């Protein structure tokens, strides 16, 4: 028997290699006009992997102390060979990953892939999305520059609007009453230990659920295949779908490489806790729609502060959106069309507010 055959045999006896291969061979992906959206999840997973690798590399030089954080990032950007590349890919990759995660979420929403029995898949996915936003928020502070310091001040300040426990959350996040070096240490811990741990668990669960139930087919396509079963088409996951996914990954890496080479991520000015806020402080683009909304709100709505109403509405909306599959389980009723309308509004609101925030200065 040849050497590769031996190894395969050995592996098969230890943990059922052939069985695993057989599973992969038999796994299929349904083919229809919306199949392109199936790539988004895999792309997000790939970008998460990039973040893990580049993040670990950055840990080799980064130092999470107020007197050294900015300097260590500066060191990475100027002195370490290819440090500019690693850090730029980490920063750009984070943004692209959040974009694909949001796109993945909306595609799942509009294709109604969250219906029974996939409620838990949606739920775990939504929690993953919040974790990803948490990654973005906590990572933004780590270079310890002026912009990130003040964006963090504003961002953490919003949590104080939460009733009863708001102030406690604020103190918990900041590691004190104010954003200081203690906040940096805390955000670092959250960014590199807490969130990765939680995210790994949830990704495992999410993938397990996807494998367990297979890919969801949108209701409209489902109806068509019921009417004409001979038209139902499928694609093998391995190698057919996997090879296509691989192409998309290569393209994604090439895009990140170009962004890093032509537009390395900025360093900014070192954070100064005693300086007054610079003009044009803003959060990352994915929080812009909330930032812009809070700007629009009047100082007081009835007996409540405008910010409180804003935080309350966003909080309720997030909870409702997360629990969506438990409201919208009706296969094709009036309510399901109503939910699509809500989704279109939400997407339009997100895009509209974000664009407005950047254009309408």
């Amino acid at each position, binding site marked *: 028997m040849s050497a590769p055959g031996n190894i395969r045999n050995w592996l098969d006896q230890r943990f059922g290699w052939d069985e695993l291969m057989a599973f992969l061979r038999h796994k299929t992906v349904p083919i229809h006009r919306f199949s392109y959206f199936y790539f988004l999840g895999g792309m997000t997973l790939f970008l998460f992997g990039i973040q893990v690798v580049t993040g670990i590399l950055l840990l080799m030089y980064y130092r999470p102390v107020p007197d050294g954080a900015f300097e260590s990032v*500066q060191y990475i*950007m*100027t002195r370490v060979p290819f440090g*500019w*590349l690693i850090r730029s890919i980490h920063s750009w990759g984070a943004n692209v990953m959040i974009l694909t995660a949001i796109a993945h979420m909306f595609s799942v929403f509009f294709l109604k892939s969250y219906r029974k029995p996939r409620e838990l898949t949606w739920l775990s996915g939504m929690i993953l999305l919040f974790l990803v936003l948490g990654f973005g928020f906590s990572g933004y502070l780590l270079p310890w520059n002026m912009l990130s310091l003040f964006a963090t001040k504003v961002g953490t300040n919003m949590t104080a609007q939460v009733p009863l426990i708001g102030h406690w959350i604020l103190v918990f996040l900041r590691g004190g009453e104010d954003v200081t070096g203690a906040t940096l240490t805390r955000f670092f811990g959250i960014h590199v230990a807490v969130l990765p741990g939680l995210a790994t668990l949830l990704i495992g669960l999410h993938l397990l659920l996807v494998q367990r139930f297979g890919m969801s087919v949108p209701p409209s396509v489902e109806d068509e295949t019921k009417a004409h079963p001979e038209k139902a088409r499928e694609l*093998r996951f391995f*190698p*057919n779908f996997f*090879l*296509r996914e*691989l*192409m998309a990954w*290569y*393209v994604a*890496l*090439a895009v990140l*490489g*170009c962004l890093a*080479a*032509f*537009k*390395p991520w900025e*360093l900014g000015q070192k954070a100064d806790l005693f300086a007054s806020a610079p003009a044009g402080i803003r959060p990352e683009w994915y929080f812009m729609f909330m930032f812009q909304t809070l700007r629009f709100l009047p100082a007081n709505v009835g007996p409540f502060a405008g910010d409180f109403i804003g935080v309350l509405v966003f909080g309720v909306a997030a909870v409702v959106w997360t629990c969506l599959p438990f409201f919208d389980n009706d296969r094709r009723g009036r309510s399901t069309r109503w939910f699509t309308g809500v989704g279109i509004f939400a997407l339009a609101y997100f895009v509209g507010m974000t664009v407005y925030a950047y254009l309408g200065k």
Partner: protein
Amino acid sequence: MNLGGFCRNGRAPRGLFPPAFLLCGALFLASPSSLSAQTKNTCLDCHSQLDAPFRVDLAAFAQSIHAQKGVSCVTCHGGDSTSDDMSVAMSPAKGFKDFPAREQVPTFCAKCHADAAYMRSFNPSLRTDQYSQYLTSIHGQRLAKGDHQVAVCVDCHGVHDILPPNDSRARVYPTNVAETCGRCHANAEYMKPYNIPTNQLALYSTSVHRAALVDRGDLSAPTCSTCHGSHGAAPPGVASVVNVCSTCHVFQAQLFDSGPHKDVFKSLNLPGCVTCHSNHGIQHPTDALIGADKGAVCLQCHSAGDPGYETAAKIHARLVQLDTSIARSREILDRAGQAGVEVGPAQLDLNQAQDALTKARVAIHTVELESVDEDINAGLKVTDVTYKAGESALAEASYRRKGLVISLAISLLVLVGIALMIRKVESKQ
């Protein structure tokens, strides 16, 4: 404190009364402001209602330094401000003096302001030499000769609305002085009898000194009074111009004195600094000011063939050489920075070259090539290094691009390979 209670019930021990009385009296004396507020000032009652020239603006007077320090109408004008009867209030018997005629104004103010002992009671560091200075000024001398057009105290300081000179609203605050002098000196009609230029304010408004004073807010930058004096205002003579400028431009003056120009200028009766830099409209000096080209001030005296002409041309060339060299370094570093390579340290080094150029531009006041060369060479040494840093940063940028292209080419190859593979796998299925 419960003195009232003691008094009313009359049970207080006798011994307590004298101290209590004294205490009341002390309190009374210790609050002069509340006292004066109650004291009536019949002068202002009328004069705040009258028309010019008898009008006194109450608000302006209240903010003036005199009112602030408790100097009231009678302190200067005499009379009795407590009497409602005009003939009593303004009776010469009460010491009333009419407002002074123009030629009387300096002595009127000097009564207090030249009295060192009296002024010390308000502020021990106040100067009291204004009147004696004024007598030496052109203004004071002409006034003595009966010219009533010249400036007297009130023309610059105001009358009832006088503000201290460190109040930014005062007409004698540094940023306002030029306008104040210009009220007369920029008025061609008014200045006609004196036959002197009236373009000083217009020139000064374009000058580097005004820009420093007003635009940059540097209160140590000169205005009219810095060079001409304030109370002793007079044009500085030819011989003393260098001394005036050198109070700030010490280094340039020292270098000028050490060079050959000093004696030559003296023999030609040329004023030092002004000969090249002009006076009121001093512009930020450029390297074009020195040299043999059109626009160079050296050409006023030197012409082709004489050694000074040659030296001027050489000095100019050296300055331009370093300036261009700095610009070249800056340009390449900026280009590298835009290409995404961090060039902060090299840009910091470049500041040393800029320092050297600044020093060289000061050293030209010796008008000797050797002393300029020293700084220029030091600067050129720095720009050599920074230019090389810029070149290697650009090389780094192109290295990054090349690396990207290679990796993109490989990726493309992989993509083609996968595409072919898919097609092949699927053609079999």
